[in-house]
C-alpha cells in the first residue's frame, strides 16, 4: 500500500487524526504532570529543609549554641554528604559547625542557592550535580545564623526519569497508534478495494457477480448489501430488456412475414384485376395480431423490470372477484361454460395494484373460457387463512400436464395440444409477472380433474 493510496484511505486519515489527538492530549497531560510533580517535589525539599531547621532550633533552645555545635558535628561528619548543607556561623561569618567551608549569605527563611555558592567541603559526587540548586532554610539564633540546605539532585534525577518514561511512553503510544492505524487501514483498504473492483466490473456491464463483503455486520457491510440489491434490480431490468429483444426478434417475425405475404398477394390480385380486399383484410389481421403481441410484451416487460411501479393500495379482492364474476358470467354462458364464485361474504384486503390485479384475474378467467371445451365448469375462489389470502381460478377441464406446469409461465409457451389454436401464449407470463410484483406465490396445480391456478397473498392490515 503506497503512500498515495494511504493518504486517500479514509480509515488511515481517521486513525491518524485520532492518534494525533490522543497523542496531543496525552502529551499535554504528561507535561502538566511533569511540571506539577516537579513543583511538588521542590516544595517538599523546602518543607524538609524547614523541618530540619526546626529540629535544630529546638536543640538550640534546649542547650544553646554549644549543644547545637555538638549536634551538628555529630550529624554532619566532614565530607559525609554532598547533598545537604548544614552551617552554623557567627555574626562575623566564622563557621562554627557544618560542612560548608565558607560562610553563607545570612538569609532568613527560604532561599535557593546554586551549588557553586555553597562551597561544601566535598565536591559533588557526579558531574551532573554541579548545577544543583540547594533549597536552604535559614534562621537567626540570637546573633548566630544557622541554615539547612538540601540539594535538588534527587528531584532532578527523578524528573529526568519521569521525562524518559513519559517520552518513551508517548513515543511508544504514537508508534502503536500509527502501526494499528496502518494495519486497520490496510484491512479496510482491502475490503474497499474488493468492493471497488467488483463495482468496476458492474460498471463495465458484468452484472452476474455479487460484490463481496456483505457478510460483515457493520456500516460498510450494510452498504454492500444495498449495492448488491441495486445490482440485482439492475440485472432484472437488463434481463427483461434482453428477453423483450429476443421475443421481438423471434416471435414477431412470423406474423410480420405473413403480413407482407398478404400485402404482396393483394398487389398480385390488383395486377390480375382481382379484388384484393380479402388479402388486405388478412394483412390487417396480422398487423392487429402483432400489435396485440407488442402490447402484451411491453406490459409484461414493464411489470417484470419494475418500470411499471405497482400502485400499491388496499384492494378488496372480494369485490374485485365478485365484479369479474358478474362481468364474465354471461361471456362464459355464451361459450357453453359455467362460471361460479365461492368468495365468502367478507371483504378481503390485500396491498396491491388494482389495475394489474384485474388484468391478472381477467387473464386466468379468459384462459379457462378459451382453452377448455364446452360444458366445462369454472369457479372463482377466495379464502382467507390466518394472514394469508388465497385467490384461485379452477376449472374441471383438461388441465395442464404435470410436465408442462413449470413451463407455462414462459413467454409464448403454448401447450402441446394447443399449438394450433388462437392465442400467443403470453397470458400466464403476465400472471406470473404480476404475481411476482405483488410478492404473491403462484401455484399451478391439478384440480382433480382440471386446472387450478392459485395465488397466495399476504393479507393487508386493518
Amino acid at each position, binding site marked *: 500500500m503506497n503512500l498515495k493510496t494511504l493518504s486517500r484511505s479514509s480509515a488511515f486519515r481517521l486513525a491518524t487524526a485520532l492518534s494525533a489527538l490522543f497523542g496531543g492530549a496525552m502529551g499535554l497531560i504528561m507535561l502538566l504532570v511533569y511540571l506539577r510533580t516537579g513543583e511538588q517535589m521542590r516544595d517538599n525539599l523546602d518543607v524538609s529543609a524547614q523541618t530540619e531547621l526546626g529540629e535544630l532550633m529546638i536543640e538550640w533552645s534546649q542547650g544553646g549554641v554549644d549543644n547545637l555545635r555538638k549536634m551538628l558535628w555529630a550529624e554532619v561528619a566532614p565530607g559525609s554528604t554532598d547533598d545537604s548543607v548544614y552551617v552554623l556561623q557567627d555574626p562575623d561569618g566564622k563557621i562554627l559547625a557544618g560542612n560548608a567551608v565558607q560562610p553563607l549569605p545570612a538569609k532568613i527563611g527560604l532561599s535557593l542557592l546554586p551549588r557553586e555558592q555553597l562551597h561544601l567541603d566535598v565536591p559533588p559526587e557526579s558531574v551532573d550535580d554541579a548545577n544543583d540548586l540547594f533549597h536552604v532554610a535559614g534562621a537567626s539564633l540570637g546573633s548566630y545564623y544557622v541554615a539547612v540546605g538540601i540539594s535538588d539532585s534527587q528531584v532532578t534525577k527523578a524528573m529526568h526519569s519521569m521525562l524518559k518514561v513519559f517520552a518513551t511512553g508517548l513515543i511508544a503510544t504514537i508508534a502503536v497508534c500509527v502501526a494499528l492505524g496502518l494495519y486497520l487501514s490496510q484491512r479496510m483498504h482491502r475490503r474497499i478495494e474488493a468492493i471497488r473492483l467488483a463495482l468496476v466490473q458492474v460498471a463495465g456491464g458484468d452484472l452476474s457477480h455479487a460484490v463481496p463483503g456483505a457478510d460483515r455486520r457493520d456500516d460498510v457491510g450494510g452498504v454492500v448489501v444495498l449495492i448488491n440489491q441495486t445490482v440485482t434490480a439492475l440485472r432484472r431490468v437488463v434481463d427483461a430488456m434482453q428477453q423483450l429483444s429476443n421475443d421481438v426478434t423471434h416471435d414477431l417475425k412470423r406474423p410480420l412475414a405473413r403480413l407482407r405475404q398478404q400485402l404482396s398477394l393483394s398487389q398480385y390480385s390488383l395486377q390480375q384485376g382481382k379484388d384484393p380486399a380479402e388479402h388486405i383484410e388478412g394483412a390487417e389481421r396480422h398487423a392487429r395480431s402483432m400489435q396485440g403481441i407488442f*402490447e402484451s410484451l411491453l406490459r409484461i416487460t414493464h411489470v417484470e423490470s419494475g418500470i*411499471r411501479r405497482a400502485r400499491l393500495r388496499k384492494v378488496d379482492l372480494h369485490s374485485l372477484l365478485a365484479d369479474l364474476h*358478474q*362481468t364474465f358470467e354471461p361471456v362464459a354462458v*355464451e361459450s357453453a361454460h359455467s362460471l361460479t364464485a365461492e368468495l365468502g361474504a367478507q371483504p378481503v384486503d390485500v396491498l396491491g395494484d388494482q389495475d394489474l390485479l384485474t388484468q391478472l384475474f381477467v387473464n386466468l378467467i379468459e384462459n379457462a373460457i*378459451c382453452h377448455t371445451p364446452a360444458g366445462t365448469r369454472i369457479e372463482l375462489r377466495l379464502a382467507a387463512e390466518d394472514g394469508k389470502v388465497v385467490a384461485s381460478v379452477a376449472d374441471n377441464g383438461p388441465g395442464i400436464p404435470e410436465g408442462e406446469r413449470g413451463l407455462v409461465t414462459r413467454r409464448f409457451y403454448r401447450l402441446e395440444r394447443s399449438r394450433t389454436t388462437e392465442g400467443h401464449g403470453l397470458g400466464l407470463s403476465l400472471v406470473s409477472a404480476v404475481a411476482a410484483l405483488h410478492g404473491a406465490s403462484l401455484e399451478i396445480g391439478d384440480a382433480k380433474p382440471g386446472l387450478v391456478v392459485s395465488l397466495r397473498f399476504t393479507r393487508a392490515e386493518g
Partner: protein
Amino acid sequence: MRLLIVEDDPEAAQAVVAALRPIGGSLDTESTGDAALRRALQGDFDAIVVDRMLPGLSGSALVEKLRAAGRHTPVLMLTALGSLDDRVGGLESGADDYLVKPFDPPELLARVRALLRRVRRAPAQESLQIADLRIDPLARTAARGGQALDLQPREFDLLLLLARNAGEVLTRTMLLEQVWGFHFDPRTSIVETHVSRLRAKVDRPFPLQLIHTIRGSGYKLDESEDA
C-alpha cells in the same frame, strides 16, 4: 366545426385527417408544438388532436400551457406510449382523452365526436328520456313504457352511458374503459355479450329497437330506426 391537428409525422397526420373527415368543418394541421400553441391561442377551435411526441414543445407541455392560459378546448392526445403511467401523465397535463397509436380510424372518430359533445352534455343527475325509455341516474332505475327494467349494476351502467351519448357511436374500447374500467384489450367478447343481454331486456320486449350495432365502429342508442 374547426379542428386542429398537431402531428409532426406527415403520414400520421394524413391518417388523422382521413379519419376525422366525416365530422365535416375545417381541419387545420400544424407540425410543431410552438406553432400549434400560437394558433390554438389565437383561433377558436372546437377540439384539438395532438401527438404527445413533438419536436420542440411537446404535446403535454402544449396542453399544459393551453390550460394555463385559461383555454378549455377539448384535447385528445395521441401517442405510441401506452402504459398506464403515460396515460395518467397525459391526462394530468390537461388532455381530456388519450388514444394509443396505431389507432382504429372509427375509434378516433368516435372519441373526437365524444369530445365535441362534452360541451353540450346534460348535468349528471338529470333523468334521461329517450322515446319511451326513462332512466333515473340517482335512483339507478330504468323503465320502458312505464315498465320497470330489471338490470344488473353493470347493465345499468352500460345503458346509462349509451343513453347519455344517445345518437352517437361509442366504441368497444370506450365502453370497456368507461363501464368496466379496463384499460386493456380482453380476449373475450365482454362488450358484445353484455350489449346482447342488455338488448334482451331493453329492446326485445318492445316494438322500438333502441340499441344499434354500427359495424366497424361500435354501438349506439338511438330512437331513430334507420340509425
